[in-house]
């Protein structure tokens, strides 16, 4: 039951083959049994889940509801959920229970989905391995000694292990796509502005974007259908109607023009990962697509640009965590400055502190032009590269990450190596275009994700491409051994 798609489960719920309460209990039991090995949940909201499931059953009884009604989902723990602890993976928010609901979780709730709980993540979404969580590292269901990727590592691991049907994630520099790749699931980072950021705790506001994660592209489309759309509470939200993400899943791919950027296949890319990607591209050719080499010449500059812009915004976004109104406050502050410095030093982990300091430095008087402004100029170049390339081709394909999941602790002492993990994903956020990670095979027993990048607001097209691929392959249907043990 845990391996089934949203469409199948929705049918079963509608046919009363199973109730939402039963389905929810099944997933809660799986979490109780398997999550101690994975640590993918920070909070399991059993009571809320069962109440929502009962409400979903009542709705289904009356013949109403959507395809998500009664489906158990999980939310990354940076979406504020009213009355449910929201930690952002940080000690700073270990006691934060929001009195409000994010637009994304609210829309998913309105579609009738059942919230199982809140998933683990790198603290404040800063990280590529999920080792930067105050609540401990998450393990990869395919190999418990490996990381699940980050920062949405909890959501990815939970889906791969069958602890949730689908989950939300957020992607600032690859945080949906890279864990999706490492855990062998499907993930979509939408166009910047397509999904509301209201109630999503900000890391880097101009890059953050929420998106769906699930086993298949079709399941992602179901979640996206509920998540996407204009929100007047988010000024950067795109004021245009969302597409129907399910309508064109079955469109044929004949004549699809795929671009392969040569910079994505150069030095640093694991040859076994490269083999998997090239095999996937061949599969698309069989489906009627044509392939062409293209160039995204400024790819290398995406890392320095990102690691100036994101920390700069973060240094400001995280100023509100000052111990005054909510979150962690140090014991017995001597004075105001002592309260600020100790609350923040105690509340934030090392990586978060590092990025706040980098960002503070980059925005400082005398350095702003050399760092922040220059990074913004590079950002425009990167965007122009994509715009130009997407005039020639319909989509761009390449690897999501240079390697498969790496060992826990293997890169924690080498931050630059960790940052290089994001080389293929960062530029997409800088440009603001949508991109997916689609399971495309295995290298040494670990999953490999194919990255599919498209033009602005081409989410429906990307989902169609991924869905067609998944109709002809079964990489997305593979289940890790540990998940079968329950």
């Amino acid at each position: 039951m845990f391996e089934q798609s949203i469409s199948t489960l929705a049918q079963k719920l509608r046919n009363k083959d199973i109730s939402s309460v039963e389905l929810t209990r099944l997933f809660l039991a799986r979490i109780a049994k398997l999550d101690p090995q994975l640590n993918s949940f920070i909070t399991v909201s059993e009571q809320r889940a069962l109440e929502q499931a009962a409400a979903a059953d009542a709705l289904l009884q009356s013949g109403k509801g959507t395809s998500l009604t009664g489906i158990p989902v999980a939310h990354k723990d940076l979406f504020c959920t009213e009355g449910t602890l929201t930690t952002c993976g940080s000690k700073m928010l270990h006691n934060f229970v929001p009195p409000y609901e994010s637009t994304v979780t609210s829309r998913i709730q309105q579609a009738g989905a059942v919230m199982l709980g809140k998933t683990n993540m790198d603290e404040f979404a800063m990280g590529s391995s999920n080792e930067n969580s105050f609540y401990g590292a998450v393990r990869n269901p395919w190999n418990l000694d490996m990381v699940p990727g980050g920062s949405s590592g909890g959501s990815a691991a939970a889906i791969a292990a069958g602890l949730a049907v689908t989950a939300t994630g957020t992607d600032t520099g690859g945080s949906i796509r890279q864990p999706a790749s490492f855990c062998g699931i499907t993930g979509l980072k939408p166009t910047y502005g397509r999904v509301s950021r209201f109630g999503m705790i900000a890391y880097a506001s101009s890059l953050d974007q929420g998106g769906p994660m699930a086993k298949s592209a079709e399941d992602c489309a179901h979640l996206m259908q509920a998540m996407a759309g204009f929100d007047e509470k988010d000024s950067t939200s795109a004021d245009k109607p969302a597409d129907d993400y399910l309508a064109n899943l079955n469109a044929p791919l004949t004549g699809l023009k795929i671009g392969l950027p040569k910079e994505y296949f150069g030095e640093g890319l694991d040859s076994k990962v490269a083999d998997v990607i090239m095999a996937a591209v061949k599969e698309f050719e069989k489906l009627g697509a044509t392939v062409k080499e293209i160039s995204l010449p400024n790819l290398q500059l995406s890392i320095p640009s990102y690691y100036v812009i994101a920390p700069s915004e973060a240094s400001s976004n995280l100023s509100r965590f000052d111990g005054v109104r909510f979150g962690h406050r140090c014991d017995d502050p001597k004075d105001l400055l002592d309260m600020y410095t100790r609350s923040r030093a105690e509340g934030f982990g090392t990586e978060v502190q590092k990025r706040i300091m980098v960002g503070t430095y980059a925005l400082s008087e005398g350095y702003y032009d050399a760092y922040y402004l220059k990074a913004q100029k590079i950002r425009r170049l990167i965007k122009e590269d994509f715009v130009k390339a997407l005039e020639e081709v319909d989509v761009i394909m390449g690897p999501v990450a240079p390697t498969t999941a790496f060992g826990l602790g293997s890169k924690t002492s080498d931050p630059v190596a960790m940052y290089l993990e994001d080389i293929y994903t960062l530029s997409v956020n800088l440009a603001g275009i949508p991109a997916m990670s689609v399971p495309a095979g295995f290298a040494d027993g670990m999953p490999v994700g194919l990255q599919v990048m498209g033009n602005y607001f081409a989410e429906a097209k990307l989902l169609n491409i991924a869905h067609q691929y998944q109709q002809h392959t079964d990489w997305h249907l593979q289940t890790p051994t540990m998940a079968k043990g329950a």
Partner: protein
Amino acid sequence: MNWEVVIGLEIHTQLSTKSKLFSGAAVGFGAEPNTQTTLVDLGMPGALPVFNKEALRMAVMFGHAINAEIGMTSVFARKNYFYPDLPKGYQTSQMDHPIVGKGYLDVMLDDGTTSRVGITRAHLEEDAGKSLHEDFQGMTGIDLNRSSTPLLEIVSEPDIRSAKEAVAYVKMIHSIVTYLGICDGNMAEGSMRCDINLSLRPKGQKEYGTRTEIKNVNSFRFIEKAIYTEIERQADILEDGGRIIQETRLYDPEKNETRSMRSKEDANDYRYFPCPDLLPVVLTQEYVDNIKATLPELPSQKAARFQSEHALSEYDANVLSSSRAMADFFENANNVVKDPKLTANWVMGELSKLLNQEQLDIENSPVNAQAFGELLVRIKDNTINGKTAKDVFQAMWDGEGSADAIIEAKGLKQVTDTGAIEAMIQTILDANAAQVEQYRAADEDKQKKMIGFFVGQVMKASQGKANPGLVNPILAKMLKG
């Protein structure tokens, strides 16, 4: 040494929008602490700002009123610093691309001369909350009702050369924003606050001296006094061969002195950068032109019209148009009596006198413009004379009713019956036979001086009600005998 003072002003004007600059919370003064707040004003995680378009419209109105370039693309920036009443850890303001660019105002000084003050820019920003230090047993209370209230910060060039000029400039800004209806102008409640940048230099020197900034001065009188005090302080230091320290100072009205708040060395590096939660504000020419076309009449335009339409002197026109409320009062009263000169004299005379005595704004005058006009009608049609009118006005002020009701009740109607006046005069002449003899014996020059005595007696006997226009000729005739 002969010092020249150089002053630039930053005026924070609270815009009278219904809701806040970036949230839907109501704006208001005096509500229970933290009751006028939303997630945005509280700086809650995940809360996002949404720009209030009404504040934009008001800022563009102001830009037109000071002949400024309008920023067709303006950008909100974050000014980062930590303070407990700044919930997000940054203030959303505008830095490189303000909504209002370069403009100017021609300021009329007391001596009748005009001086042009350049305005560098005016930008939109959100206000911070308030820290409350009393009633918390050594701790600090935070009230975030004011957080995210819209402000228009108006920055002048260092063009001002005296305390009087500074006050005239601030009064003019006050008058403009209240005319436009974009600020209630209530300085006591903090709707307008002024930062004063001040330096001295030897007369004739081109370079500016080191300046200090006096923060948050909130009345015309304090602005003037703070400037005098700071000029004196700086001059004393410089004349003793000392050096001015660039710093922020606070004016203490009770001690009439400025005190150091923080020096430049302690100043924050605000790390301004464009706010990624808000899009640049891009205006169309049509939007800007529409606002210009619907701009209400401004003080200078009103003064010109008062001169041409009502034949008032330049001085009267300027005084009456200096505040929208006074101009409205004048025009409404004049609509009743249709005598601009009489109305102007009474508004600037008796009305202003009583308002000053009781420290009332014209909006709170106990006698409204309509009732005031009705009083003036009774002067114009000779029902009462000017002197009686002052008594009637005082009675109206004290709430005794309308002009007509008071005149009726107190029997103050002028005596215009010639027979009655003749009888009254005869009684006076009979009672003062000796003076009449003296009068008749005197030459013409002396008679002119003596007639005042008889007029006074008649007016006294008539309790002021005799029409002086009738008394004088009849008296002259009867004295001749």
